[in-house]
């Protein structure tokens, strides 16, 4: 795999060298992209998975002679100030046109600086509703959770008739804003929220919060947490005897969460983006390559990162390295074939993806479109 990469790079640079001397432009264009994810610290393996996904995208772009993407990585360790320093480094030292990043606090911090330095930030995984329409320099390539929060609420109250619910959310940007949106939507749909508990990021023992929720006796429990806390929440909820139906979000799909939840995962429902390797040849190929590289099936965020990198590469090939032009190109794509499905953006740069409902049966999610 590595040798192929080297060969490709060698061939591309050689061809560029040759083409550079000629008048006509026949070699591959180059584009510079920065990636800022957490590569160490809490949930560091998330970032490593993203790295694999982006490398796969980069190689495909080179193989298909679309563009030679140079990717530079920075580790934000889930701290906004490190992300800022990384961003400045990427722009100063490597002159990247686009920065791919995740984590809602990071994106919020990068937005003003992106505007100042006129580079594009492509958010592939942060889902806080606060990210909607930040400014012209941020594109949200992940479906923000205000929409699926309200859809879930409607589904729970109207379709399933669950009148009382409790919420357990992680105490950060993402968890708090999503929980708020969900609560408002739930109350608007006619339900009653009996308890809201929060846990710090990275907390693995959620029994205290869950015991209080159990005492409030809800019909449904909504868990809005991170990886792998979600899995532990589910396992511990069942362990202490909560019999309510459990609902969750996209992150429950992550293999780490499924593993942590163990047998308790069966019966958990929610709304999520759906990655189906059987859906299209692109999806299947990506799933195979990723499993070979990373040793596990891809998580939704890996798929989104892969699609984002490919989309950016293609945009750079078509319109050059100007971040504004890249942004306009991306926003205007129609039904772009991504591994996640057909990708569209609204005029403000927020991705429009359809969510599906899922339910875990025998340890695997079963999707139904609403």
């Amino acid at each position, binding site marked *: 795999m590595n040798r192929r990469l080297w060969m490709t790079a060698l061939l591309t640079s050689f061809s560029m060298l040759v083409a550079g001397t000629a008048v006509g432009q026949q070699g591959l264009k180059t584009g510079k992209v920065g990636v800022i994810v957490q590569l*160490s*610290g*809490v*949930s*560091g*393996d998330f970032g490593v998975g993203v790295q694999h996904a982006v490398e796969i995208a980069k190689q495909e772009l080179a193989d298909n002679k679309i563009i030679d993407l140079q990717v530079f990585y920075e580790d934000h360790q889930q701290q906004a100030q490190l992300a800022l320093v990384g961003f400045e480094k990427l722009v100063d030292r490597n002159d990247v046109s686009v920065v791919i990043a995740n984590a809602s606090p990071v994106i919020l911090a990068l937005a003003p600086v992106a505007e100042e330095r006129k580079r594009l930030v492509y958010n592939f995984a942060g889902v806080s509703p606060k990210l909607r329409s930040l400014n012209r320099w941020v594109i949200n390539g992940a479906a923000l959770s205000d929409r699926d929060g309200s859809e879930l609420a409607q589904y729970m109250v109207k379709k399933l008739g669950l009148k009382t619910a409790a919420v357990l959310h992680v*105490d950060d940007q993402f968890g708090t804003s999503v929980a708020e949106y969900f609560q408002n939507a739930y109350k608007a749909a006619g339900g009653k929220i009996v308890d809201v*508990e*929060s*846990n*710090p990021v990275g907390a*693995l*023992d959620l*029994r*205290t*919060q869950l*015991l*209080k929720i*159990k*005492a409030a006796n809800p019909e449904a429990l909504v868990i809005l947490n991170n990886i*792998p806390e979600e899995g*532990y929440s589910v396992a511990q909820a069942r*362990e*202490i*005897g909560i019999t309510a139906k459990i609902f969750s979000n996209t992150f429950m799909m992550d293999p780490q969460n499924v593993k*942590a939840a*163990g047998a308790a995962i069966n019966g958990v429902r929610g709304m999520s983006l759906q990655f189906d390797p059987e859906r299209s040849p692109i999806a299947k190929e990506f799933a195979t390559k990723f499993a070979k590289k990373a040793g596990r099936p891809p998580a939704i965020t890996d798929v989104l990162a892969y699609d984002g990198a490919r989309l950016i590469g293609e945009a750079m090939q078509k319109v050059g390295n100007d971040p504004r032009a890249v942004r306009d190109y991306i926003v205007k794509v129609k039904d772009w074939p991504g591994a996640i499905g057909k990708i569209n953006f609204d005029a403000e740069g927020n991705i429009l993806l359809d969510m599906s409902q899922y339910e875990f049966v025998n340890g695997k999610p079963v999707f139904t479109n609403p």
Partner: protein
Amino acid sequence: MNLFLELLVAGGVAGAKVGVAALGFALIFYTTREMHFAFGAVSVAAAYPCYWVVKALGDGPLGTALGVVAALIAAVLISIALHKYVYLRLRSVLPVVMASLGVSLIVENVIQIVAGPDIQVLSYPALLHIVEIGPVRLRVLEIGVFIGFVIVAVAIDVFLNRTRLGQGLGATMDDPEMAELVGVRTSRMRMGAYAAGAALGAISGIVMLVDTGLKPAIGFTLLLYALIITIMGRGSLRSVAIWSLLFGVIRSLWSWQFSPDLQELAVFALMVSYLIARDSWDRYQFNRIRPISRPASTVGADARA
């Protein structure tokens, strides 16, 4: 009422988990007077060999036993090496604190580089089986840890008070110079204390491995709890055991009436307040004018003041 009971039990179990580590740290600290900040990092680091052994040999009884032994050996070796080659070279207290902080950084990050920052868990289905006692549901693991903690605490107590070796250890804790004079081999005692403390730390690490999983970063927080509880128990391992249970229970019962969000803050604030209050009370006692005549049995106490 149910909630209260459940929280009480959950708190007791959490206290037991911290208590094993706290007893280990207290053993080391009271005997050697060295503030071994690397204790948490070493305990967590020692549990990794256990994980690797079990992964390699399978989780049957042989694999598990070998894993535990591997962890114990790793912890004991590292701790004694630290004591001999690092702490003993540095005579005074502040350098020992600094050096141990540095060692804790080193150990934690070496483990992170070697094993990755993610959580590693070993799950034993037998241990995760749920048992119902009255209105409370517990896992076998938790019951085991609690019983283990009680056994360890009682064993330490009996050892210190009833056996000759233990009395030597106690003498080293109380007054090392006098103990040396009387013939107790204090340097051996210190090494023994390090070994025992490290073993307890490794056990605490293994418990975490099987419970919620290991991550290099949890060593430091574990250490802080153990350290605070050690200071709160003044020189008596019995009170360390009691304080660790109290610590878990208070933290848990806080959530009974207030938001669980604030339970860490509440516990730290309470501990700080207690330390301040106790200190002022000590001072007050010390500064009080005492009556001249005192019964002979407290002569020892007075002489120290």
